């Protein structure tokens, strides 16, 4: 974590255009006092567990060590080589990446399209769409999952009835189960994108858009050449947030595919780590999977920080 911070030290911490106010000039210990509760909590419940996670991933840590009191032996990279030698791990990893990518793409496309739609309509339909979206947004992941499973239930669900699919089971096949989870994830995560991008579009001065329209630009051209570039900071935030959320999906997969699907066909990394640790008591393997996830998301974060820096945002 400190590796990337050094890159930022070269930035002028107090740019001349932002003169600190008088109490800020000699802050003394006050800011640290204000930060104390937050830092204590984060240190104890975030930083220390991350250290522990890394540590456990290098130990032999199974039921014998957890409750039997046997000493935990150092394994070096043993857990990692066991993990990387397991073809199921690679299958789960690629499924996670593809699934997250599909979710992010779908969420962004639908969210942006509906945000543009919101700017074209009058207040009443706009309110209706906003309210529907807020409802989906507010729905807890677990109840959203139960409802969607019920909607697509083979025997009693309305969807099969409407589509005339008989008692076709959506959770039986690997891809249809993933598709069902994707629909639920899309349903509960597009509202964030829609509302945020809509707020961003509203913040663009109308003169700019009118000028483009007067110059004869088509709607698509206006979006591509005027709106999208002006929205880029917002789109970056929204994309990264979606990547992070969708990469970590747990509840939906766990509930909708009943813990990872038939023979683990619908496992994603998060559920895989949980199953390894708490279902088969292989805590060190579960921790190693957690470390892999952490590193992947850290890489995404570094990309994000670079993008933010290139846009010249001040921290």
């Amino acid at each position, binding site marked *: 974590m400190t590796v990337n911070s050094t890159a930022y030290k070269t930035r002028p911490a107090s740019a001349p255009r932002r003169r600190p106010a008088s109490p800020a000039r000699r802050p003394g210990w006050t800011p640290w006092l204000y930060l104390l509760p937050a830092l204590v909590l984060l240190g104890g419940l975030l930083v220390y567990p991350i250290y522990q996670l890394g540590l*456990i991933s290098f130990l032999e840590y199974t039921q014998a060590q957890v409750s039997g009191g046997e000493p935990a032996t150092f394994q070096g990279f043993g857990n990692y080589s066991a993990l990387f030698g397991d073809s199921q791990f690679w299958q789960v990893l690629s499924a996670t990446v593809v699934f997250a990518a599909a979710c992010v793409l779908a969420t962004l496309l639908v969210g942006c399209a509906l945000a543009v739609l919101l700017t074209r309509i009058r207040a009443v339909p706009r309110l209706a769409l906003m309210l529907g979206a807020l409802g989906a947004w507010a729905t807890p992941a677990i109840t959203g999952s139960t409802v969607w499973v019920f909607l697509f239930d083979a*025997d009693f669900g309305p969807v099969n009835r409407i589509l005339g699919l008989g008692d076709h089971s959506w959770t039986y096949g690997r891809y249809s189960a993933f598709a069902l989870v994707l629909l639920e994830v899309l349903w509960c995560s597009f509202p964030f994108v829609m509302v945020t991008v809509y707020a961003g579009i509203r913040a663009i001065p109308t003169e700019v858009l009118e000028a483009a329209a007067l110059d004869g630009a088509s709607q698509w051209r206006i979006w591509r050449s005027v709106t999208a570039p002006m929205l880029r900071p917002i789109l970056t935030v929204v994309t990264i947030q979606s990547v992070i959320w969708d990469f970590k999906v747990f509840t939906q997969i766990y509930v909708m595919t009943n813990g990872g699907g038939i023979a683990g066909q619908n496992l994603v990394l998060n559920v895989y780590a949980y199953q390894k640790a708490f279902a088969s008591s292989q805590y060190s393997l579960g921790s190693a999977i957690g470390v892999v996830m952490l590193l992947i998301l850290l890489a995404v974060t570094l990309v994000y920080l670079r993008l933010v820096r290139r846009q010249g945002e001040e921290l």
Partner: protein
Amino acid sequence: MSLTVRRPGRLVAEAAALLIAAAVAFPLYWMVLSALKPSGEIQSTHPRPWTLSPSLDSFRRVFEQQDFGRYFLNSLLVAGTVVVASALIAFLAATAVTRFRFRFRTTLLIMFLVAQMVPVEALTIPLFFLMRDFGQLNTLGSLILPHLAFSLPFAIWMLRGFVRAVPEALEEAAYIDGASRTRFLWQILFPLVLPGLVATSVFSFISTWNDFLFAKSFIISDTSRSTLPMALLVFFKPDENDWGGIMAASTVMTVPVLVFFVLVQRRLVSGLGGAVKD
């Protein structure tokens, strides 16, 4: 903008918006409807999108068979504590990183950003051992503390914009008028930042209220400390799911969040705009 859109185009757009709104709201409608259907209609292979004889049987079953009311209170207690504590702590921290210039300020900000990206689910294993070593397993504290900690980085990040928006001249004026730093903090800055705190609290409330993984992992033997998600899963039985019960329990779990959202929705949109524009 409205100049460029001709009327028929707008009507099509509005019709599409209404259709999409209906489709998005449909799962929630179906949830409430199924919770109200008598069990005969739920077990029907020809489900109808209405019911002529609504009944509260499913709700009654949920509240009677399980210790549901207690789970509900547990969930409320955990989420409420996290929201209030997180708002206060994040407010202090956001003030520190926006109103003061000090060493490591930028490093701290970047660490708050990185902390948001940490997949907290991956920390379930070490947290489980941490809670066990401190004797916190099966207590509500084992849910409150991690959620409080994990809600902080995002809350601090979001509140920055709101704290920064309060003009520094106001702060100087307060000091000239003889206000102490503490007085300025709680009597001037805090009320001004309150809308931002509300927007932020939505996120900490939802992530805590929705939590399934920690509740499943840390509350293992004392079911009187369970929260709603666990109670919901009780109705899942192999091959004979009690859909009426599941939908009624889901409704009970969703409604508080909906109410919370409706109460704060105006501030949420402006709050998000503020945080993102920032």
